[in-house]
């Protein structure tokens, strides 16, 4: 599969993304890119559910938050290194998702979407009452925790690079799944689940698998992100608003495409960042973002890439 030019394009883009702030030494840029990278991870993995399998997961942020909690707990209480801690978080959340998935994936359409909200809220409240994880106070990282990465300053760079690596992995996973039998099965489920099932796609197993797969990288990213932030609280770890914004990003870029969600996440984050810091807009940033979304949904439902593909059908060959 490495013969495909598109893959090299992803890797090259990731390298530029990772190295640009490093060589320009533009730390402000790095912070902004980091947040965008996190959203790309969220949107890209969410796209596996929404774009491929056709299941709207409103509570996708729960993976991110739980991953963050597990990682920070391992780092603070058991003094693990952040990398194994984040990976363990990812694996644990992924396994948990498989378990949950078998239950709530029996639901279809809007009912599934609502159930995911319920799961997110229930888990947030559980964590609020879970004292080993600091309850509502959350977990605070001591500055010593950055020691193994060469102190707080260096740790920021290291986590940035790690998050870009996870972003790249997300895009590659999107690509690999899209071009596998598994991915084909998912697309079939997205088109018509009953028909897919009749044609021999093992729908319950595939759905649980994709739910679990879409949990892994966001959970790892959650671990890295909250490690970098130095603090995790239930309200910011399980923020439903962010979860819904991730859906907006997927739609903005074009759900079901590989690059679309990433593009959407990047643009959305930069736009929100701009509106938030531009004095004349900050009052109306929410209104502008909302109006923009409304226009996209009403008039460009395929998202940016969907629109491009429709306009210039040949681009589909290169970008997928």
């Amino acid at each position: 599969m490495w013969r495909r030019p598109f893959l090299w394009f992803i890797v090259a883009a990731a390298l530029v993304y990772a190295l640009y702030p490093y060589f320009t030494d533009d730390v402000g840029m790095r912070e902004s890119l980091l947040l965008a990278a996190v959203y790309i991870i969220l949107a890209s993995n969410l796209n596996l559910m929404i774009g491929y399998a056709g299941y709207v997961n409103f509570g996708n942020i729960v993976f991110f938050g739980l991953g963050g909690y597990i990682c920070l707990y391992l780092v603070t209480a058991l003094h693990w290194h952040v990398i194994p801690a984040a990976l363990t978080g990812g694996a644990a959340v992924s396994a948990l998702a498989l378990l949950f998935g078998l239950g709530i994936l029996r639901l279809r359409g809007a009912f599934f979407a609502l159930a995911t909200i319920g799961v997110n809220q229930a888990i947030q409240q559980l964590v609020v009452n879970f004292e080993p994880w600091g309850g509502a106070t959350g977990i605070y990282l001591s500055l010593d925790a950055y020691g193994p990465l060469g102190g707080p300053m260096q740790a920021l760079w290291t986590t940035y690079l790690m998050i870009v690596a996870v972003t790249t992995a997300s895009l590659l996973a999107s690509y690999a799944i899209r071009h596998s039998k598994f991915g084909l099965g998912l697309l079939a489920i997205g088109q018509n689940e009953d028909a897919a099932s009749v044609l021999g796609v093992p729908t319950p197993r595939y759905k649980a698998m994709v739910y679990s797969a879409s949990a892994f990288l966001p959970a790892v990213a959650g671990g890295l992100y909250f490690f970098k932030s130095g603090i995790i609280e239930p309200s910011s770890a399980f923020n439903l608003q962010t979860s819904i914004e991730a859906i907006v990003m997927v739609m903005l870029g074009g759900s079901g495409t590989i690059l679309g969600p990433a593009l959407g996440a990047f643009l959305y984050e930069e736009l929100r960042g701009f509106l938030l810091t531009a004095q004349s807009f900050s009052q109306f940033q929410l209104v502008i973002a909302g109006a923009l979304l409304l226009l996209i949904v009403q008039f460009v439902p395929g998202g940016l890439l969907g629109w491009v593909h429709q306009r210039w059908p040949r681009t589909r060959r290169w970008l997928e």
Partner: protein
Amino acid sequence: MIGILASVIDGILIGAVYGLAAMGLTLIWGVMNVINLAHGAIVVVGMFVLYMLVSALGLPAYGAVPVMIVLGFVIGIGLYWIGVHRMIGRPELMSLLSTFALNMVLIGLGTAWWTTSPYNVQVNMPSVSWRGYTFTGTHITAAALAVVIAGLLYLLLYHTRIGKAVRAVATNREAAELCGIPTTQVLAMAFGLGVALAGVSGTLIATMFPFTVLSGEAYQLKSFVVTVLGGLGNPAGALMGGIALGLIEGLATPFMPVSWIPIVEFGLFVFCLIAFPRGIFSFTKA
């Protein structure tokens, strides 16, 4: 023991208002298969309408209720044409996003206008005290009005021509159109009705509690829970679902820390979705 009883009564009173809020959501959901994510924002509109009418114009608090019904209906029809009309018949995701965008715009405008500071409308109603426990007049009035409005909605849907048309459109839009029912207008009207209900529930909530521009989200989530308990598109179910939710809250409080209640609520929500996807109180719709 008396404490538990007091909690239960409180739960039923507040539950009736939850039911009213959910009625707006479930009506829209049932009739046009749109989950209105702007529901919470509309509840907030109802709250601020009370604030403006009472604080700025000096109207009596409950005078805001009929005003809100009319205003909510008009706003709802406007929102239908702006954000919902093009989503009818499209995949659910699209209408979810569209109404979510409406939500962002409404919340954003509200934030720019009123900031996110809390507002407070003082409504003086005689309260009922009993063995040290007090049930405030605003709670009792709100619950009573919620039941009355639910009753009126029932009459409208089952005993008027236009209400029957709404049900007909909900059951089979194409057949309704072929019967000569202008279904687009009926959908717009149903949306207006749903918004009016959500708005009125906000008005009633604002007579009881202080509120901010962001208060809507909590009631939106509760409305989801109620809808799932009560079944889709069923106003009577919504009222019962609301009371059930209030009862659960009331009954659970004496036995566990209050911060555990949301876990019970949302756990129950997910369980009900999986176990009774049509709702516990749903009698209609195959």
